[in-house]
């Protein structure tokens, strides 16, 4: 049998590649609407399940809000939940695999410092407490008691930046501890088996099981807590601004529902589908009104806190270059959504110090 010529088979290979390439069409191409909207979420449920809680964006996912919004357009919503947290989401964006994302403050700062191009659309969390949790029989009663011991934190995520703030407040640095990097599931297991002396994680699931306890808690301290952002890639925003607006409007509507106190219990139940217990949401969300905790505003507090986070990330050597907030925020989409939904003034604005600007609004 005479083998086909080199050129013929080379052409065949090229044809195979062409056909295969056609089957893997890019998510967005030259038309007014994308075929798919890809959302990266910097977290995952317990045991790696694609379901989360703790934010209004998680609520939107569980309720299928965006899917309903874009069903009439034939646009698919693709959610990716990343157990690798913020760094994994950055990788998705770097490889052109994410259009929108939920992100903690540190990873998005690091990403921007290395050239990732995003536009911040709104905030999704603030004033959340942070905890250092230890084994149930730990003799430690304070951070100082953990000096020289094994302290676990999920490095590269907002947790590491928050830990840096806390340690600084107490005159400490990461170097005062034997720090190890662990994700949430691994860390809970390590505390239960006493493989670490403390970890940056909420204690309540472990407390309920009788294997962990609180060693340190910040409470809702505006100087220490992290804030999260929801962003869009610059490329997607330039190409589909109307789609961006619809996404933001739909999510702000959900956020308003999530911020109503009368929906607090129902929301905890919804979030507990993620595998994190109802009890933990009760405890970690107890100290702050939902309207404060879930505020989407890009207010003075948000901007100043973002700037301080950038300075701290540089100070803690978590970034190697300076980052500017100029041109990073895209408030027009949020402002339009608030106007359309008649939600202007619904969430209180906070000043740079983290206090409500209007006392009357705070009482609502």
């Amino acid at each position, binding site marked *: *049998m*005479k*083998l*086909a*010529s*080199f050129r013929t*088979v*080379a052409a065949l*290979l090229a044809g*195979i*590649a062409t056909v*295969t*390439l056609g089957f*893997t069409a890019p998510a967005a191409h030259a038309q007014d609407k994308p075929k798919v909207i890809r959302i990266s979420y910097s977290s*995952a449920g317990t045991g*790696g*399940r*694609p*379901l989360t809680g703790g934010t209004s964006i998680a609520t939107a996912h569980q*309720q299928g809000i965006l899917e309903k919004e874009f069903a009439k357009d034939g646009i698919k919503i693709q959610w*990716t*939940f990343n*157990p*690798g947290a*913020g*760094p*994994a*989401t*950055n*990788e*998705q964006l*770097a*490889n052109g*695999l994410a259009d929108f994302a939920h992100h903690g403050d540190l990873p998005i700062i*690091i*990403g921007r*410092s*290395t*050239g*990732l191009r995003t536009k911040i659309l709104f905030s999704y969390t603030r004033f959340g407490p942070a905890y250092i949790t230890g084994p149930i029989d730990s003799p430690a009663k304070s951070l100082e008691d953990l000096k020289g011991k*094994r302290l676990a934190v999920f*490095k*590269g995520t907002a947790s*590491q930046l928050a830990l840096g703030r806390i340690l600084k407040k107490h005159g400490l640095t990461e170097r005062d501890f034997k*720090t*190890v*990097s662990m994700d949430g599931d691994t860390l809970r297991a*390590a505390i239960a*088996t006493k*493989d*670490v002396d403390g970890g940056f994680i909420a204690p309540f699931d472990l407390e309920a099981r009788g294997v962990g306890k609180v060693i340190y808690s910040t409470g809702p301290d505006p100087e220490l807590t992290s804030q999260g952002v929801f962003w869009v890639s610059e490329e997607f925003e330039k190409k589909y601004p109307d789609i961006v607006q619809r996404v933001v409007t739909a999510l702000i*509507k*959900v956020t308003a*529902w999530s911020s109503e106190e*009368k929906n607090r*219990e*129902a*929301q905890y139940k919804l979030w507990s589908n993620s595998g994190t217990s109802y009890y933990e949401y009760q405890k970690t969300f107890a100290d702050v009104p939902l309207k404060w905790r879930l505020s989407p505003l890009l207010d003075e507090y948000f901007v100043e806190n973002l700037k301080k986070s950038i300075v701290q990330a540089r100070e803690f050597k*978590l970034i*190697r270059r300076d980052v500017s907030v100029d041109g990073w925020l895209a408030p027009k989409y949020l402002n339009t959504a608030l106007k359309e939904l008649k939600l202007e003034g619904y969430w209180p604005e906070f000043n740079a110090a983290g206090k409500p600007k209007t006392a009357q609004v705070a009482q609502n």
Partner: protein
Amino acid sequence: MKYLHRRICTTAGLLAIAGATQAAGQSNEDLQRQIEELKAVVKTLQQQIGGQGTAARTPVAAPAEAGQSSASAEKTFIGPEATAKADPGAPSANTETTPAAPEVATKADIDGLRTDLENYKYEQKRNRETKTALTTRGTTIGGSVQARYTAQDPAVRTGSTATSSDRSSSFDIPQATLNFAGSLYRDYSEGRNLDYRLAFAYAKNSPATDGSQLNATDAYIRYSPLPTLTGLEDPRLTITLGQQQIPFGLEAQIGEELRPVINNAQFLGGLGVGTRQIGLIVRGDYDPYVDYGFNYRAPLLEYAFGVVNGSGPNKSDDNNHKDYIARLAFTLPVDYYSLFRELKFGVSAYKGKKNLVNGTNVVGLGKRDRYGFDIYYNHAPFGITYEYAEGRDGVANNGPEIKSRGQYLTAFYTWGEQWVASSRAQAKYDDYWPKSYQLFARYDTFDPNRALDNDRTKVGVLGFNLFFAETTKFQVNLNHYDYQNPAQRSSNELLAQFQFGF
């Protein structure tokens, strides 16, 4: 009540009979344990009867409670759309969302849960003992199989027994592997583990027979003296003792799962650097550059050095000299998003002694040295690898040493998500695995003796790879062989291979 009592007696009787039939083959301890288990079951049943009796005395409460629960469930709404369903103009009863009353577990509920737990424990224990492969230490079993179709022009008879005509094509199973791996000691706090690996590979006989060979490929233990769990910024170090791949160059160290080409570069076989050796090898890195934004780690320096027999796999040393190997690689310290990400330069050296043979007689020892240089660049979707290797071998009767040279250049274009770590690690319910597609071209030359004319071979390869599952890929390679020796005709070879792992 009589009916329940009769059911209890019947159940106990059946259990007793079952126990009696097994008594002959079981020890007294087992029998005693089963008796205790039966007693517990009977006691539980009696308690359940007591609980049911109590429930029977208050038959009116249950329907009312059920009704309340149902009513509460019907009134529960979740979400903004659900809230919108509540009509302000409707009767007030329908718009109220009365919180459900807290439920209290009854004794029967708790007893039922206990029984379920005991049944579950028993079932798990039985299944583990009778339906699960057990090992003294935790073991991961894996392997791979390659199924290949080859078409070549001109026809060949290599590896065949006597035939009436040469073959132009063939279906083959060129390789099948089986491996076992795990930890002999697991350090959960810092990851200073002691691991092991034992692997076997199938190989055809040549000339072909109905039989085949199964040889050990990897057989080693590996210890990590430095922590592996503390973070990306800490250096790594491993000490490996046993039969293993040697750290020479790039391609010799890449596993079958990741190698883009079906056939290895010529010099791997020609110089023997792709052959496994038995010995002690230290591998590690220094000053890793970490980009926390992407969990990306690029060791500034990677090093490896070791001492091996030099006689190849599955053999003791065949002379009184050990061979030594060393490698050093430098990776540019840049961020994940940098254009120069994963640009690496490496050098390798292997110094050994081999038996010099004159005919069938060993007449002395001669050198067996290998030196190599490599460049690796992989910035999705593009990548380039280049590798150069040179061999210097002594010859019998004090003749001049033989110098050989091989090198290849591979360029590839990859699209898809299989090599994006976050895509592989994403949370999922089903067996989803990201796919990748790859086109590549390679130019490969090998000259076994630079002093001789007409002994160089050039191979041009065009290929396409489809990685469509965690351990599965489909490959098509078109190879063109160009022999400097005028007595050998150039040839073309089409390979289509399906490789799957488990």
